[in-house]
């Protein structure tokens, strides 16, 4: 009697205990997103991926040095280096980009690949991406007494690894070991370095101040030359689909090769004003179901 009673009660148990559904995440390895506001952070590329079929358009400017004062409107009169950059997301992991920088009229082509991304449950503690590409200097050198450089002598290349982590909702940090190679670094090029190879370590930091704006930091010490280190400090503002980035930086260079070889002013004295506008365009948007 007792045993059968127990069995019967056990049989009823699951239904009497059963109440609400257990809450389960659809994807337990949910990615950490928006480690940085945009695929660019001051001058450096970030681990921030593009969605498939979306395009990232960036207009970047850096002006003359601030030390000219109000006479030169803090460098704005001295002419800007402007870079237009278009990056297309071919998949969730890979994007391809082309850019054109007015300094030495350099056309650059590069790719960015996201190996893995930081997850909310910590199964991946950081995001890891790589980027690399090359560019050609298209300035005219007719004025030179010697023959102008040929196509291959105008080439430069870069490669970098990006390792980033969002430490808290407010603080993100990226480490970027990078190198650049110039096949023929001539003095007439607008770079300060005379070496072929440049090795550097980039540091990028983001400190979120309000829900939609952050303090941005950039520090890129050169490791194999005695060129000055690059330093930048800025303010990122997110406005819908745009990210505006205003900053002070020590170099006028905007592409990776020139950032490493281009030389830098002294921190503070020879700061330049810089300004990026980032816009993400989405194509292949779903049609409404109404």
């Amino acid at each position, binding site marked *: *009697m007792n045993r*059968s*009673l127990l069995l*019967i009660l056990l*049989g*009823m148990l699951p*239904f*009497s205990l*059963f*109440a*609400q*559904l257990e*809450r*389960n*995440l*659809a*994807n337990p390895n*949910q990615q*950490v*997103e*928006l480690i940085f506001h945009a695929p660019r952070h001051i001058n450096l590329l970030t681990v921030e991926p*593009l*969605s*498939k079929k*979306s395009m990232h358009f960036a207009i970047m400017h850096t002006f003359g040095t601030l030390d000219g004062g109000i006479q030169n409107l803090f460098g704005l009169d001295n002419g800007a280096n402007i870079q237009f950059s278009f990056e297309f997301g071919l998949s969730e992991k890979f994007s391809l980009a082309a850019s054109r920088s007015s300094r030495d009229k350099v056309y650059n082509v590069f790719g960015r690949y996201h190996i893995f991304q930081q997850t*909310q449950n910590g199964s991946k503690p950081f995001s890891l991406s790589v980027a690399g590409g090359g560019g050609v200097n298209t300035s005219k050198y007719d004025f030179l007494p010697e023959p102008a450089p040929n196509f291959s002598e105008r080439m430069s290349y870069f490669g970098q690894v990006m390792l980033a982590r969002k430490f808290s*909702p407010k603080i993100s940090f990226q480490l970027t070991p990078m190198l650049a190679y110039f096949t023929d670094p001539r003095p007439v090029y607008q770079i300060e370095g005379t070496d072929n190879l440049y090795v550097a370590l980039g540091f990028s930091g983001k400190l979120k101040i309000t*829900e*939609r704006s952050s303090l941005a930091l950039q520090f890129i010490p050169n490791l194999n030359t005695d060129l000055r280190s690059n330093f930048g400090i800025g303010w990122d503002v*997110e*406005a*819908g*689909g745009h990210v505006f980035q205003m900053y002070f930086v020590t170099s006028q260079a905007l592409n990776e090769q020139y950032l490493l070889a281009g030389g830098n002013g002294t921190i503070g004295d020879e700061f330049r004003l810089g300004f990026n506008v980032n816009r*993400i365009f*989405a194509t292949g*948007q*779903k049609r*409404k*179901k*109404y």
Partner: protein
Amino acid sequence: MKRLLFILYFITTVAQAQTFITESGYVNFLSKASLNEFNGESDKLNGLIDLDKNLLDFYVDLNTLETGIGLRDKHMRDNYLETDKYPFAEFTGKMKTIPTLSTGSKSSVTAIGTFKIHGVERQIEVKGTLSKNAKGELELEGGFNVLLSDYNIEIPKLVFYELAEKQEVTFKALFKPKN
């Protein structure tokens, strides 16, 4: 005594057949602001209907909501819903009256209960229709409005014209008997 228990056992087993669940319900929200209208959807609505106990329990992982623009999804998760802290939208409640369901006919139902999103709980009333198909499955459709300010979701002035304060939520799901 023994006979009574067997009867009880039988009743609880029957009650089991009065429980219906889904893991793939469809849920949609529509944002109609003056300058921009967009919707977001997920087909990962989890739900439970227990007709015996009159228990309704639903949740959706907000990370599965998609608006068709990847960056907008990221902003939605990061800036508005804060899905890392509050991953689910949940509703637990009951029907005001349990309709008698006959195959093929739709009955209007009103549910009252607790809706929780962004860490804020509120009592709400949801209107919908419930019907039973030939396979013995339940079909539930309905909708309700969510005022973002009720749930401490702030709309910044910059995007005031692009994101509506009132979000129109609709859902539709097919519930299979739980066995």
